[in-house]
Structure formats: C-alpha cells, structure tokens
C-alpha cells in the first residue's frame, strides 16, 4: 500500500469514528444505523464507508451545490395561504435500505394496496362488508369522505386506486409498521423524484457505486396505469391541480412536466354532452383521464361540495357515463378514516384468509360499546383522535392522550360521553430513528432523529408496482412522540441498495414511438398566463427604461439644457408618468429616492419589482412549460430589483442596477426566442410582449413626441425606445419631431417601433388556431390587421397628439379582443358563479 493510500484509509477511519462515536440510539427506540449494542447494521456500513471517502469540506460543498440547484429551479413548497415560497428543506443523508429488507416491505405494501382496492369496490358496490357485520355502517355513514353520489358507480377500467401510499416506520421488533394509509391523493412522489435528482447531482459516484435502485421505470408504469380504462387509445391525461396556492403545487407542476401530463385547474375544464372537456385556444377538447390532486368533494360543486371553486360542475356525470377515468376515484379518501383501521384486521382475514403482513397500530372505534368499555378507564398510552377531520367550521378535538393533562382528560371523557362514535383510540407508536447531520458545537456528527417513510404503489397494467425509494421526512427534534410532522421537518431521499447492478431507465420509450411535432392543445388559462407573463416583463422593462432616462437626463450632461435639473419640464414629465403608472408613491421625491422606489419599491404597485413579481406569479402557474434557465433569469431579475428600502442607494449605483435588470430581461427575451418551441405557448408570450410594448411606446409618444415636444423630450423618447444609436447614424443634424416619430412609430425595421410590434401581432394571430371554418378573419384578427395597416402606410406628420391618443386606445382594444377570443375563462375573465339566494 502506498503512503497516500494508507493516509486515505486512515483519514476515512478517523472520519467515520468522529461522525459516529457519540451516536446513541434512544432506549427502547429502534434505530436504522445501530442496534442496542452499538453495532452498525443494515446497509449503513456500506454507505458510510463510501461517504467517508470524502472529507467534511467536500461533502459540505456538494450539499451547497445541491441546495443551490433547489433554489435556482424553484423546488419549493408553499404553506397554505402564504404567498411566499419556501425552499424545500433537504435532509442531509438518504435513508439507505438493503434490498432484502425492502422486498419484505414492498410485498406488504402491495398486499395492503390490493386490500384497499377490494374494500373500496365493496363500499361503493355490493356493500357486503357492512351487511356481514365486518364493518359498522356508522363508520361509513359518519365519514365525510363517503361520497354518496358515487355509490353504484363503477370506475372505468375497474380500479378505484391508481396511486396508494402508506406512511411507515420500524417497530421495536425490527419489522415495518404502517402508521397511516393514504388513498385520497397521496402527495410526495414528485418530491421523492426531485430529492433524487438533487442527491444524484451531489453524489453521482456514490449513487452509482452503491447500486441504488432507480425511479424512472416506476413513473413510466404509473403513467401507463393512469391511462387504463380510458376510452380512446391515445388518451389525453390531465393533472387536476387546486392551483398555485396549493401547498404542493410545485410538486404537481414538476410531475406534470416529468410525466408529460396537461396541468389543468377546474376553470380549464367544462362538461359538455355528458363528457369532460378542456377549454383550449383551439376550442373544447376531450379529457380522458384526470389525475386529481384536489380532495374528492371539491371535484364537483354541483353533486358534491357546493362551496368548491376548484372543481367542475357536473363532473360526476362523466364518471357515471363511464367516459372519464379519475385517479383516485372520488370517495377513495374514506379509507383514511381512522375508524376503518380498527376493522382492517378482521377484513383482511375475511378477504385474504390471514393477517396482514404489514400491521398498523391497534385501534379501537369508540362507537362500539365493547371497544369503549375496554379503553374508557385507562387512556394511558393511547392517542385519542376524531374519526374524520370534521368539515370546516366544526370544532376540532385532536388530542394526544399520552401526556394529556387532567383537564384535557376530563374534556375527552365528556366528549366520549356525548358522541363516542366520533373518536378512535389508537395505541401510541413511537417513530424509529435514523442518522442525521448535527452541527451543534461546531463539529459535524451524526445523531439519531425520528423519521416517517412514505412508500408509494402504483396500479399499473401489470398489477401493483412499488416505487423503489420514497419520500422520507425527518424531524429536527429528537423526541419520538408520534406527532404529525409539520414544523422543523426535513425531507430525505430513500436509497435501496441493490444486490445486482441496476439498469439506467429514463422516461424514454422503448420500441416504436409515435412522432409528433405539435404538443397538445394549449388550455385557455395557460395561454392567458403566458400572455400576461409577457406583458408584465415588458411592463417592468418600460418602468426601468423610464428610470434610466430620468437618471441619465438629470445626472449627465448628455442633454445639456437640462443637466442636473430635476425640475426641467422633461424630467417632470417622466416623473408624472411614473406617478401615473403607480411606480412611485409621491412625485416630488429626490431623484435617487424616486429611482429607487420605481425600481424596487415593494409598496408601489407599479414598480419594476412588483411587475417582475407579477410575472413570476404568472410564470409559477406555468412552471411545467418554462425552462429552468428562464426561471433562473426571472429569479435573477427579482434579486436585482429587491433593493433594501431601508438603505438609500446613490444614483450611480441605481443606474447600474437598472442596467443589470435590463440585461436580465434581455436574457429572458433571448431564451424565449432561442429555447421555446414555436407552439401556441410561445406565440402568447410574444403576443403579450408585443402588445404591451406597442401600448407603452404610444404612451411614451403622447408624452415625449407630442405636438410641442422639445429636443430634450425627443431625446428621452429615443432613449426609451433604445433608438439613440440608430437615430444618430441615420440623421446627422440632430433630433426633430417627424424623424423621431417615424423611427419610434412607423419604421418597420426598428424592433422597438409600434409598426414592428403590430406586424408581429398580426403574424402571431395568423399562426394561432382558428375557430371559423369559412376562412374569414375572426374579429380580433380584423382589429389587428386594420391597426397594422394604418401604421404600415401612415406618414409621420399624420401622427399628431390626437391621433396618438386614439391609437393608444385602439391598441388597448386589440388586447381586449385577443383576451375575449382566447381567454374566455382565464383568471382575467369570466368565472363560473354560484346561483345565490334561497330560491
């Protein structure tokens, strides 16, 4: 052995000792890394040995790069009702499991998934379980997840569940135990995927050397499973999201993108002639499969929960007609009701003829007098909780009994007296622990932390298939009470170390695949968001250019007649326009303060920052359509404009910030030009920018190229249109009204002129889908063609102040006409309204 190799081995051994020497599993709590005698076990020695090949600095650097990727690509989760996004807290080490251990767990998961499917088919079908007394009727009738309109409806393809998940932990005997079943619409597969992408990026060698099982084949099979039961051979599969404010929206967008599904909201869908349709820019198109990520009762405000604004009125009718596949079927959430767990062992024996391989905690439904008698006197060691989450507005009684105070205990006894059937008692099951990094005291070491593992199983054309991995959540605190994991939670990847080399599979089809050049139809709402994304970016640019013009005119000697004079008429006009646009809160601020506010004012609704945030919100609803680079450019733009309002910056620095912001906007435009497919989506982004630029340029012209415009005004006009250089090259004698008007309004070769924008708009509209079959132009196309022609044949002298004002209004009218044609149901237009009042 060479000296260097020997030193390496020594370093590795020292590091491992340093990380694990203080590691002590809690007494009586099963731990993944160590047994009670302090011996490492399972897959961990192999994993740690490999990891120990790197020192702390390198590991740290790799994590930093992984975390940066998270920030850049915007993997994040949203706390409900919170507009800010939070980067998903990545746990450091993956949970590593040996293949044999995993196979046992998977077999148990498949068995459970099959049983869940059987139970659902019975509850919404023959009803034998209740009739035979294996399940009390009250457990079903009392569940808000029992969707009565779905009774008797057989799902097309025969399956209620497309995706099943279970939260598991390891019991004291080393066997896996189920804490909860997830049948409503399990979240987390997307995070599992993203965690994997991040970790393989940080530790590619480790991942390959340890032969970690890959995830792609599972997702492929899941997608195939979604299509089972669809009436058409090439079904249109949609992911129904509750929208951008859902806590798992980003996950949904990522999954839609990865699986090639159409991301839709309720407003995108409409029932017509008994079938579900998507509103697209090409008219209504059939939807065949819906992967729902909203709760069952929100899916149809007419037959289920009338308070829902997320679903589609009449959707249940399509299920009844058998022409729509919904995964999971509405009503599947009833299996998450706590009381069912009390009867699961009996049901398993009835259907399987034996006990479940994966047991859950012992559970009592307090509505059963015998069960109640058994637990009433001693609630110690039991957790007592409501059978089902009560509907909104009802009082929640979620109490954990083990440490309940006497007063709480009395309250619970009273609740048990009035309505015992609303409660289940469950034996408390402590969570097992796994190693996590800890940096207290400045040294990096491993400590045991409680975790919950969510395992997913998909119903595929070849039966149930378990994702070889999962979504693991680790608590940052050591206490192992079976708390619901919310605050202070990190997530971790799950690595199954295979005995054999693993094959790389990605979502690339094997065998003959159909070649297609046009992606599916663009939903109207997505078109609306793309359009507004373009408009907001352009609006931000217009504000920034005004600021640059103001700083330039005041601070430099370019325009000698107004140098240094913030009160010159031209400067005042700039201020007035910024004020009119809401970019500043007061028009008489000092120049630097005014520029700072217009650029980064968090409270001025028309500041460049606010426009860039609006663009971001529109972009967020389109995440599945936007490239990572575009998202990053948008993040950079926001970062530049987020100026600390408490810190007054000098003019020079503001000018440089403004110029940087302009270059990020230019990058965004470049990305759109170079990286976006020329599908309908691209047309709408560019339409938005062109329309907005035409309007803004006309607005500028009414202020700075009006009938009595001064030389200084015209100079600003040219700089707002970025046309100084071309103008100087063309006209050597200096600025004059008609040449300036011609250049910024009519010149078809100037990419900043109004004529150029309108020509582009007309071209875009000609390439978008048409509704009429007779070849005649649609109303919005007429408006565009007429306006475009007026600019194409006009002469500079005709475009006086009055004409400019009229044209500004007409281009606004064109924007409205486009919205009316393509976004009849977008967020900026009509919404379905509930009939109100007692009829």
């Amino acid at each position, binding site marked *: 052995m060479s000296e260097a190799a020997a030193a390496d081995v020594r370093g590795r051994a020292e590091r491992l000792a340093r990380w694990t020497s203080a590691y002590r599993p809690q007494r009586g709590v099963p731990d993944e890394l160590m047994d009670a005698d302090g011996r490492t076990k399972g897959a961990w020695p192999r994993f740690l040995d490999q990891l120990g090949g790197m020192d702390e600095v390198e590991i740290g650097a790799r994590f930093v790069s992984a975390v940066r990727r998270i920030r850049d690509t915007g993997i994040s989760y949203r706390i409900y009702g919170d507009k800010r996004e939070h980067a998903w807290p990545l746990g450091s080490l993956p949970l590593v499991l040996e293949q044999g251990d995993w196979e046992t767990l998977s077999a148990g998961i498949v068995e459970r998934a099959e049983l869940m499917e059987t139970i659902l088919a019975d509850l919404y079908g023959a*009803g034998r379980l*209740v*009739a035979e*007394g294996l399940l*009390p*009727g*009250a457990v*079903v*009738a*009392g569940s*808000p997840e029992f969707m*009565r*309109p779905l*009774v008797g409806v057989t799902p097309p393809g025969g399956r209620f569940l497309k995706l099943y998940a279970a939260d598991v932990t390891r019991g004291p005997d080393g066997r896996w135990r189920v804490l909860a079943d997830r049948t409503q619409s399990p979240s987390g597969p997307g995070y599992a995927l993203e965690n994997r992408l991040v970790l393989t990026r940080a530790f590619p060698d480790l991942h390959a050397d340890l032969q970690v099982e890959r995830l792609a084949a599972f997702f492929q099979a899941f997608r195939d499973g979604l299509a089972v039961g669809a009436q058409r051979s090439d079904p249109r599969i949609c992911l129904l999201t509750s929208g951008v404010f859902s806590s798992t929206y980003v996950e949904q967008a990522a999954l839609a993108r990865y699986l090639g599904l159409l991301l839709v909201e309720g407003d995108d869908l*409409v*029932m017509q*002639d008994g079938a579900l349709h998507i509103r697209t820019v090409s008219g209504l198109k059939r939807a065949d499969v819906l992967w729902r990520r909203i709760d069952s009762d929100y899916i149809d*405000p*007419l*037959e289920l*929960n*009338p*308070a829902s604004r997320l679903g589609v*009125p*009449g959707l249940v*009718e399509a299920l009844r007609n058998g022409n729509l596949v919904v995964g999971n079927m509405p009503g599947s959430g009833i299996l998450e009701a706590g009381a069912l767990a009390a009867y699961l062992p009996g049901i398993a024996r009835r259907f399987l003829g034996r006990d479940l391989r994966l047991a859950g905690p012992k559970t009592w439904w307090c*509505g*059963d*007098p015998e069960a109640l008698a058994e637990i009433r006197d001693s609630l110690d060691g039991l957790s007592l909780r409501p059978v089902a989450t*009560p*509907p*909104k*507005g*009802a*009082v929640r009684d979620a109490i954990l009994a083990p440490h309940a105070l006497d007063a709480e205990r009395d309250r619970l006894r009273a609740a048990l007296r*009035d*309505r015992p*059937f*609303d409660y289940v008692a469950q034996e408390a099951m402590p969570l097992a622990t796994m190693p996590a990094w800890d940096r207290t005291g400045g040294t990096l070491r491993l400590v045991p932390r409680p975790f919950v593992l969510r395992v997913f199983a998909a119903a595929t054309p070849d039966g149930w298939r378990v994702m070889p991995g999962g979504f693991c959540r680790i608590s940052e605190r050591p206490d192992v009470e079976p708390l619901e994991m919310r605050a202070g939670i990190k997530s971790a990847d799950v690595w199954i170390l295979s005995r054999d080399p693993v094959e790389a599979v990605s979502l690339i089809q094997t065998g003959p695949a159909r070649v297609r050049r046009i992606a599916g139809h663009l939903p109207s709402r997505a078109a609306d968001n793309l359009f507004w994304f373009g408009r907001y970016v352009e609006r931000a640019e217009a504000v920034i250019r005004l600021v640059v013009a103001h700083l330039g005119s005041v601070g430099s000697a370019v325009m000698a007649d107004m140098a240094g004079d913030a009160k010159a008429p031209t400067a005042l006009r700039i201020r007035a326009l910024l004020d009119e646009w809401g970019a500043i809160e007061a028009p008489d601020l000092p120049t630097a303060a005014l520029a700072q506010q217009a650029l980064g004012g968090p409270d001025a609704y028309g500041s460049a920052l606010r426009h860039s945030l609006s663009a971001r919100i529109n972009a967020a609803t389109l995440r599945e359509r936007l490239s990572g680079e575009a998202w990053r450019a948008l993040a950079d733009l926001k970062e530049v404009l987020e100026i600390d309002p408490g810190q007054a910056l000098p003019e020079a620095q503001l000018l440089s910030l403004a110029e940087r912001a302009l270059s990020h906007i230019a990058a965004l435009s470049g990305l759109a030009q170079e990286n976006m497919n020329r599908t309908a989506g691209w047309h709408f982004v560019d339409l938005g920018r062109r329309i907005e630029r035409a309007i803004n340029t006309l607005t500028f012209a009414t202020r700075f190229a009006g009938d009595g415009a001064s030389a200084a005004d015209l100079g600003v006009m040219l700089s707002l249109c970025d046309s100084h250089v071309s103008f100087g090259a063309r006209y050597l004698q200096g600025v004059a009204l008609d040449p300036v008007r011609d250049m910024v309004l009519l010149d078809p070769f100037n990419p900043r002129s109004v004529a150029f924008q309108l020509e582009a708009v007309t071209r875009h509209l000609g390439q978008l889908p048409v509704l009429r079959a007779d070849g005649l132009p649609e109303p919005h196309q007429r408006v565009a063609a007429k306006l475009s022609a007026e600019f194409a044949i006009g002469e500079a002298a005709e475009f006086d102040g009055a004409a400019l004002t009229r044209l500004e209004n007409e281009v606004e009218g064109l924007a409205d006409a486009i919205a009316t044609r393509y976004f009849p*149901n977008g967020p900026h*237009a*009509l*919404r*379905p*309204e*509930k*009939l*109100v*009042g*007692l*009829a």
Partner: protein
Amino acid sequence: MIYTLRHLTTYRYARPVRFARCALRLHPCDGEGQTVLESGLTISPDPRTRIVRRDYFGLDATVVTIDTPHTELRVEALSRVRVERDPLPAPESGRPWEQVRDEAVNGRGLGPHLPVHFQFPSLRVPLAPEVTDYARASFPPGRSAYGGAFDLMKRIRSDFRFDSKATTVHTPLAEAFALRAGVCQDFTHIMIAALRGLGVPAAYVSGYLRTIPPAGRPRLRGADASHAWVSVWCGESWIGLDPTNGIGMCDDHIVVARGRDYTDVSPIDGMVSASGPQKLKVEVDVVPDGEPMPEHAATPQTASA
C-alpha cells in the same frame, strides 16, 4: 287537504350568461302523508339537456343545462298535492333518547333509509359544543327522544328572534346561534346541530307552509315562501317539528325533500358562467282547494321565511 302550488324563481343578470347548469328540486314528493296529483316545470330559456337524477336518498332532481345566452333565467314549478297526515304522537311518548341514539349508531346495515346517515355533522351542520350544551337542558337522562325534541323546538321558538335581515343564505350556523336570530333555514340547522350533538338523528326538510292572509284581506300573489323544518328520528318513525313556528308538522306543511342539510335539498342549485352581479326574485303561492288563485301581486321575496 288539496293544494295548488306555484313556485316561480327568476334570476336576472347584469351581463349575458352563456352557460348554466342547474339541479332543481321544486316539486312535492310522494309519501310522508302526501300524494302528488299533478306537476309541471317550465324553464326559460329552453334547456339544451334535461334529465331526472335520483340521488342516494331516493330524491329526484331535474338537472338542466342551458347554452342559450340569456340575461334572465325563469323557472316555474306548478303542482297539485293531497296532504293527509296522522296526528302527532302523544306528548313524551316513545323510546328514551339514549336508546334511540345507540340503536341508530350500532344498527347493522347502511341502507339509505337508515337514521345513521343523519347522526353526523354535514356540510352545513357542523357540531359545536355551545349548541350541544344548549340542547342538554331538553334531554335529561331517560326522557323520550320525541319529548326532548319537542321541548327543544319550543325553546328555539321562544329564545330566537325571527329576523330576515339578521342572516343570509350563507351565514354559518354558529353565527346565527350566537345572534339568537335568523330565518327558518337557520333555526332548522341549529336544531339539527343541537340534536346531532347529542347523537339523536335529525334531518332537514324543505317544503312549503300554507299561510292564512290577514283577516278581511285577499291572498296576495307570490306572498308565500319556501319553508324548512326538522325531521327527528324518534326510534320508530321520523317526526316533523317546525322550530320557526313551534309546531309539529301538520296538514299545513307540504314536503318537497328531506336530506342531511340544505345542501342536499336546495330547491335550485346551479353554476352559471357570469361576470356581473345577479338578482334573484322568488314568488310562491300555496293555495288550498276552494280558494281562487290570487291575482294581485305582492312584493316579491328575496329570502324565504
């Protein structure tokens, strides 16, 4: 008693509605001491599709879709119905409420007719400790379910103030309870929550109530209203109790539908694609045989009694 019923609902929209989908439950049902003799439904504009859907509890709803752009939606239901009911049971008769509760919750089976469906919170009837506590005074241990429920109804009648301005169709139950005021819908939901809080099965009944015009005045056209009351499971049968008027269901009550709460039975439930405000006008006539149809129009109602 035979009644002729007319229920006219008119929605007016500020801007044209392009598409509407509605479920209508506007006709009396057979059973519960009633026989429907005739019924008709007129809708304008003409629906594109019209089907009758029977729900889990056996209640029929007419589901229509309208795709003619319109600024006014007009739904008129006409019916004739014979009502002959048994008198109410003797006061304080029937099984103790605890027994009624336990038998319902532990009964075998899950048929739609079983009272177990009416023992749990529902969308418009969440349970609240203060409402349950209010009910307790009427239900000492061992009292009959019917006796307790009748007493509770009387208390609501005297403790609560009828005030059509106090609440709207969307007012949550807890708010109406705190105000001690509201209309029939509020009183009905409150009484249901109070009963269910103790585990006694209770249902929401929608229908009509015959009104008597003031002495010497003619019956005015459209002056009646849709009405709501409670149906309580008393161990052997459902018994109707009207907390708004403090009386048991009698031949003056005409049942349209019974469900867990307003959501299950709302006379018109629908979604329209609209962008402007909407106005609602409701006219109801409940005319006993032998009386002429009223001719002079009353001030139209915008909320029911």
